[in-house]
C-alpha cells in the first residue's frame, strides 16, 4: 500500500499546523507590546539569507526524492544545518543586545516560536541523517520529505509574521 505512510504523516502535519498556528497566534497577540523591541533588534538581512537556504533545501529535497539521489539529500542536510547556524547567530546577536526569553513580550514570543520551529528543523535533520546512514526505507523518505516541506512552509509564515511584518 503506497499511500499509507504519507496519509499518516499528512494527518500528523495537520496537527502540527494547528500547533504552530496557536504559537503564531500568541506572537500576534502580543505583537503590539513587542513591536518596538522587534524593530530595534531583529536582523532582517541576515534572516533573509538563511531563510533562502531553508527554502533552497526544499528544492534539493524534492530533487533528492525524485532522483533518489543521496547527493541531493546531503545538500538538503547541509542547507538545513546552515539555517540552524544562521538562527543561532541571530540568537547570539539578540543575547548580546540583552534580548532574552525572560525579557519583554518580544523575547518571550520570539524565542518560544522560533525555538520550537528550530527543534522541528533539527528533528528533520536527524531523521535525514538516519535515512542517509542507510537505516531508512523508501516510504520513510516520502514521509520525511513531506515533513521537511511542512517545516519550510511554516518558516515562510513565521518569517512573514516575525520579520516582514515588523519592517513594513
Amino acid at each position, binding site marked *: 500500500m503506497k499511500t499509507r505512510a504519507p*496519509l499518516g504523516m499528512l494527518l500528523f502535519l*495537520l496537527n502540527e499546523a494547528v500547533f504552530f498556528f*496557536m504559537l503564531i497566534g500568541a506572537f500576534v497577540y502580543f505583537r503590539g507590546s513587542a513591536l518596538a523591541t522587534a524593530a530595534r533588534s531583529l536582523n532582517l538581512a541576515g534572516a533573509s539569507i538563511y531563510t533562502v537556504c531553508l527554502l533552497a533545501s526544499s528544492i534539493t529535497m524534492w530533487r533528492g526524492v525524485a532522483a533518489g539521489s543521496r547527493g541531493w539529500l546531503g545538500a538538503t542536510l547541509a542547507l538545513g544545518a546552515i539555517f540552524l547556524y544562521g538562527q543561532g547567530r541571530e540568537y547570539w546577536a539578540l543575547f548580546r543586545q540583552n534580548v532574552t526569553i*525572560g525579557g519583554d513580550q518580544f523575547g518571550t514570543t520570539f524565542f*518560544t516560536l522560533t525555538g520550537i520551529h528550530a527543534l522541528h528543523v533539527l528533528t528533520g535533520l536527524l531523521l535525514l541523517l538516519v535515512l542517509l546512514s542507510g537505516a531508512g526505507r523508501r516510504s520513510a523518505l516520502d514521509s520525511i520529505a513531506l515533513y521537511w516541506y511542512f517545516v519550510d512552509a511554516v518558516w515562510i509564515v513565521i518569517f512573514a509574521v516575525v520579520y516582514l511584518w515588523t519592517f513594513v
Partner: protein
Amino acid sequence: MKGLERWVSTVDHKEIGVLYMLTALVFFLIGGVEAMMIRAQLSLPGLNFLAPETYNQVFTMHGTTMIFLVVMPVLAGFGVYLVPLMIGASDMAYPRLNALTFWLQFFGGVLLYISFFAGGAPDAGWFSYAPLSEKAFSPHAGLDYWALGLLLLGSGTVGSAVNFIVTIANHRAPGMTIRRLPLFVWMTLVNSVLILFALPALNAALIMLLSDRLLHAHFFDAAQGGSPILWQHYFWIFGHPEVYIMVLPAFGMISEIIPVFSRKPIFGYGFVASSTLAIAFLSYGVWVHHMFAVALGRVFISVFAAMSMLIAVPTGVKIFAWSATLVGGSIRFTTAMLFAVAFLLEFTIGGLSGVAFATVPIDWELTDTYFVVAHFHYVLFGGTAFALFAAAYYWFPKISGRLMDEKMGRWNFWLVVIGFNMTFFVQHLLGLMGMPRRVYTYPNLPGWAALNLVSTFGAVILGLGALVFICNILASLAFGTRAGNDPWDAWTLEWAAKSPPLPENFETVPAVRSRRPLWDVKHPDAPDWAAEGGA
C-alpha cells in the same frame, strides 16, 4: 517473566487495547480513592481530615486522572480493540505506533504521579489557570510534572488519532463503505479528527506555560505584560472539544448496544451520523462559555452563547434517536442494556444543565459552584462512565471469551445508579445554595452540611458499586460462563470472530452488503440491503 515480556513488547491491537483498559482501571481506582478523600473531607463543615494544600492536590489530581488517565485511555482502549474487528481488518494501520502511543500515555500517567514524591502534586485544578499556575504562585515542581505529563499524554493521544483515521480510511473489509461503518467506528473517526484539531491547542499552551515556569518567559503573568486570558482561550479551545472527545465514543457505544438489545436497527442512522459531524464542528465555536464570568463584552459573549445553545440540538437529536430505537423493539434487559438505558436519562440531565451554562445570566450565577460539578459529573459519569459500564458488559465476552455475571451485574447497576444520583443530584442544590466548587471546607450555612453528608453517603454507595464491578470482572474471568462467539445475537463484524479473537482476527470476513452484515447472514430471507433505508 516470559508473559510480562510479551505484554511489554506486544504490537497486537487486541493486547494493546487490553493494556489500555487495565491501565485505565488502575487509574480509575486511584482517581476513585481521591474522590473518596474529597467527599470524606467535605462530609461535614470544618473537618480537618485533609490539610488545605493536600485537598487542593487531591482534587487537581482527581480531575486530571479521571480525564486524562481514565476516560481518554479507556476510550482509546475500546477503540484500539474494536475498530479493526468492526471493520474486518486484521490490525491497526501502524501496529508499532499503536504500541508507542500506549506507552507514551502510560508513562505520561506515571510522570504525573511521580510528582507526589517530588515535592508535591499539581494543585491548581485540572485547567491550571494562570497566573495561579505560574512559578510566582505555585513555586514547587508539581505543575511542571503536570505540564510535562500532559504533553506526553497529548502526544500519545494524537498518535492514536492518526492511527485510527488511517486504519478506518485504508483497512476496511470489502463492502464496508463509509456509510456502512458501525456508529462506534464512525464516532471514533470523527473523534480522531477532533483530537487532531484540539490537542495541539493544549500542547501549545503547555509549551508556553513551561516556557514561563522554566525559562522565565511571560506569556501569562499579568505583572510582566503577559495575559492570563490567553491561557483561558487556549486551554478551552482544547478543553471544550475535549468534552466531546470524551463523550463521542460513548455515544458510539450506546449506538451499538441499544439497537442490539432492542432487536432493531438504530433509528435514523443518517441523522445520528451527521449530527455527530455537527457536534464536531460546533464544538470549536463554544469554548468561550467557560469564560462567561470574565468581562469580555456582551456582543462577544452573546455569539458564543448562541453557539453553545446550538450544540444542544444535534445532541438532542441523538437522545431522541436512541429513545425511538427502543419503541417498537423487543427489549432484553441485560446489565449492558440497563446501563445504556440509564445513560439516556442521566445524560439528558447533564445535557440540559449544560444549556443552563449557555444561558449567560444563569452562568453568571452558577458557574464555579457545585452546580457545575453536578453538571459535568452527569455528563462524564452519567454519560461516559455509564456507557463504559454498558460497553464493558457488552464486549467483555468478546475480549475474554466469558460472560460477566448478570447477578453481580444487577448489584453493580443499582449501586451505581443510586450512589451516583445521590452523590451528584444534591450537588445541583448545593450550587443553587451558593457553595463554590474547589473549597476544602465550607461554613455551616443552613442546609449545606446535610446535603454534603448525603453526597458523601452517595459516594460510598457509588464506590461499592465500582468495587462490585471490579469483583465481577475478576470472578467472571475465572468462573464466567463460556460466551461463544456471539452471545447477544448481534450484527456487527466483531461477533463473527472467535471469542477471544484469533491473533489474525478473522479466518474469513463475512460479506458486507449493509450496515448489519451479520443480520444479513442470519436472515437471508429479509436482509437489510433489500430493505428501505437499511443499506
